[in-house]
């Protein structure tokens, strides 16, 4: 197994695809057996995919749009909102497959369809993959995860990111082989010849502000402790959204460092959290999130800092290494899904993020996409969708000692 990353910030989609693929091929020396493709929504991404598909017609390709661009071991790749990144895996002993499906009126059915396509493409129908990588449009990630778990069981790690555009205008796309869609899901199934390791963390810590969800519908939080959610949130944040509260409005990027946390589990008496990003205050003083809010559950105001966001990717990578059967020096490469909101909050410090990751991964190739929601596998084995999270997937050899 060999892993390499490449990138391009050329504005022309075909030229960018050409440049990125050529560089990838140079590094791998051989065609990839799986290609992760993440590019900014500024591109005509179908043109990008067409060109890549032309260059590697039988190679499974999976990915989606990434906010502004990507980072790799070589830096932050964005120029005038153009940026494309590839992560190629050469692994003829392994099997990989990708499927893609539009939601239509049944997102869960579409998820299964994409999954079955991917398993068929890998020629592994019925077999349990080592990991699933998904990219979906915002809104149905929880359904995607439950559908995958219903089909494959809940013990398979699912990692992914919600495709993002550059300005929250809905230009996100999902990529699957040579195709793309805006309201759907693409899934890669991984049967590598080697091993994988993964981690899923946030860069936030809980505050003392907490309350119970007394009314919620899907991703809309109406009331906390029977009071309008926006009012409570405003109080918890010390008047952070006082200006937005009267008529409603976007909370991006205002709420970057103050998401809401949902307790997922507990370790040694200390809880760990899945995060929900408050997207907007609605006229009825409810709050819209990028992730579902569970009624009757306790929520807590989380707090982050620019420093914690900059260091967080390195620490997530470190957790994945800790969990791996292979050693740090045996890492072949990795894929990271990093919250776009977090990235925007520390955009000017992305060079530091790259340095942190390079230090942790000892300069091994990686690709990091910026997403509007992240999916990952928590320490307790729970596959979850969250916001302001970082998901990592590392590749290495199998060790039995």
């Amino acid at each position, binding site marked *: 197994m060999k892993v390499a990353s490449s990138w391009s910030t050329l504005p022309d989609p075909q030229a960018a695809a050409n440049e990125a693929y050529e560089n990838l091929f140079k590094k791998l020396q051989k065609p990839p057996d799986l290609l992760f493709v993440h590019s900014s929504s500024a591109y005509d991404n179908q043109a990008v995919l067409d060109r890549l598909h032309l260059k590697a017609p039988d190679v499974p390709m999976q990915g989606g749009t990434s906010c502004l661009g990507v980072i790799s071991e070589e830096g932050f790749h964005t120029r005038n909102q153009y940026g494309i990144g590839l992560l190629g895996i050469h692994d003829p002993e392994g099997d990989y497959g990708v499927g893609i499906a539009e939601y239509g009126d049944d997102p869960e059915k579409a998820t299964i369809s994409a999954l079955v396509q991917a398993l068929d493409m890998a*020629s592994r*129908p*019925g*077999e*349990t993959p*080592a990991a699933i990588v998904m990219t979906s449009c915002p809104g149905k990630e929880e359904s995607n995860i439950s559908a995958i778990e219903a*089909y*494959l*069981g*809940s*013990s*398979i*790690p699912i990692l992914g990111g919600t495709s993002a555009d550059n300005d929250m205008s809905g230009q996100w796309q999902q990529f699957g082989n040579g195709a793309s869609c805006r309201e759907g899901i693409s899934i890669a199934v991984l049967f590598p*010849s080697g091993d994988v390791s993964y981690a899923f*963390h946030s860069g*936030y*810590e*809980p505050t003392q502000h907490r309350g119970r969800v007394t009314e919620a519908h899907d991703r809309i939080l109406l009331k906390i402790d029977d009071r309008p959610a926006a009012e409570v949130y405003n109080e918890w944040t010390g008047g952070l959204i006082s200006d937005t509260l009267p008529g409603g409005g976007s909370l991006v990027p205002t709420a970057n460092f103050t998401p809401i946390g949902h307790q997922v589990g507990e*370790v*040694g008496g*200390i809880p*760990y959290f899945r995060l929900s990003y408050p997207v907007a205050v609605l006229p009825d003083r409810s709050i819209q999130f990028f992730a579902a809010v569970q009624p009757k559950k306790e929520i807590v105001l989380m707090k982050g*800092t620019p*420093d*914690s966001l900059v*260091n967080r990717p390195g*620490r997530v990578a470190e*957790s994945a290494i*800790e*969990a791996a*059967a292979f050693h740090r020096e045996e890492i072949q490469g990795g894929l990271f899904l990093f919250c776009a909101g977090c990235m925007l909050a520390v955009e000017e410090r992305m060079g530091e993020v790259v340095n942190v990751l390079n230090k942790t991964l000892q300069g091994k190739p990686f690709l990091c996409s910026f997403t509007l929601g992240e999916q990952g596998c928590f*320490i307790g084995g729970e596959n979850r969708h969250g916001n302001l999270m970082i998901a990592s997937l590392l590749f290495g050899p*199998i060790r*039995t000692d």
Partner: protein
Amino acid sequence: MGKTEELREALLNLEEARKREALQRQMAEALLNGLRVLVMSEDPYEAFEQLFEVMRDPLDYEAAFVLLENDDGSLYPLTASNAAFLDTEWQPGTMFRRVMAGKPVAIFDTRLVEEWAAQPERVNKLLRSALHFSIHTPERKAIFVCTHSERAHFSSDHVVLARRFSVLATQALQKLESTEKLADLEKRLDAEVKLADLNRKLIESEKKLSRARKMEAIGLLAGGVAHDLNNILSGIVSYPELLLTETNLPLEHRSAIETIRASGVRAAAVVDDLLTMARGVASSRETLDINRMIQDYLLSPEHHRLVQTQNGVVIERDVEEKLLPIRASRIHVAKALMNLVSNAVEAVRSRPDGLVRIRTENRYIDRPLKGYSDVHVGEYAVLTVADNGSGISDQDLDHVFEPFYTSKVMGKSGTGLGLTIVWNTLQDHDGYIDVKSNENGTAFSLYFPVTREIKADESIPETIHDYQAKGERVLVIDDREDQREIACAMLTRLGYNTHSVSSGEEACAYLKDHSVDILLLDMIMDPGINGLETYKKIIQIYPGQKAVIASGYSLNDDVVAAQALGAGPFIKKPYTLMKLGHAIKKVLESE
């Protein structure tokens, strides 16, 4: 990063480490248990069965089985925790090929996989998910399969475990292979031993056949020419004697004529031996007492002449008083005895302490004597002539029975046919010869089968009346029919009522419905329980049951053990009427 977050992160890592450690410990324990199973179990199939149990917890399966690859690439079940999987056949598809290439595979839905889809519904209804991993030895490929009725039951953790267990299961397969190889080797060795035994018997048979043909040729030759030779020799012997009666015969001629006469006499002896051989099996048989023949021989002029010429040689006689009679040709047995004694005397004539011992005894033989591949089990009267000479070399021992083979000067002593006659005699009488020789001397033992016939003119000794029975019931227990018949005939003659059985088990069955006054119990019986076990069972039915023990072997631990339980005296086979009568009577009269 805040302190709280650092603490949380440290705890998360700790929890992860704990999880990994728990998994490693579970794996280590299971591997240890597996190794224990491999070390402790002697039967490889049993080892697999125990491995199934040891691995059930960590791999969390409901059923497991092992598929072994055939030469044609198909697979068949070697062993299974659930018998339903034993009656299955498998054709490898891409999944099995991947597993056999060393990659464990978890299946979340077996119905989607070609190898499983090809299985009958009765198998598929038992499971929905499966875990496969390879077991490899240099010579065999196999797949260990775990199954579960729940869909998507096996996770990546199970796959990691499977990778570890594959080493363990491979060792179980190697153990199976070693056992099979050992069994195959034993089979081949057994076959080779049997073949070697057959070859040995064949060589012996060929030797015997060759010798028999040589003897037959000599017999024919002798039969054809002996009469004419005797006529010719009569002239050579008789005329010199006539000439020697002439008193005026010149001294120088007398010596030459005496030499001619002596040569003629020796030539006549050779012809006589040839005629003895030529008579062979056709000679008439009668019931003989070897002891009496020894006595007759020792009083004969021939023996007298022999010892006269060999000054200082001591002839000892050590005979079994109750020696059983044999059915034989008198002339042949007499010749054999005479030839053996003559040879023995010849062997010690140069020694100042020359000793020749003539001994007889009764023997029960149930295993081949040295030089014979088999034996007719039974009673034998044994005549042994031993000397304390310098022995016969190994090289000469192989040829001593061949005609005219001699280390002595031909014609000077003997005819060269003495031992050939001995050998022929035993052949013709279904007997055996045992020769033992070393630097301290040589012993020829002649085994003649005994007869239980009593000559019409022979009377039972007076003393037998002392052992006459009053119709007491005797159960004879012996695995050999001839022994049962002999015992019953003797006991009937003594006035006992007899019943005989051929095994200990039969005896116990008989005694459930009958009672007897005394048992005549053989100690070595095959097949079935031996005499000791038989006696133990019988005294459970009849405590204190009286018994006399008979055996062809010497007194041994089993006999002593039986006697400790209450059995009576031990008599060695072959026993005489008197011995048997005495033993039975003694026990019956005891308290």
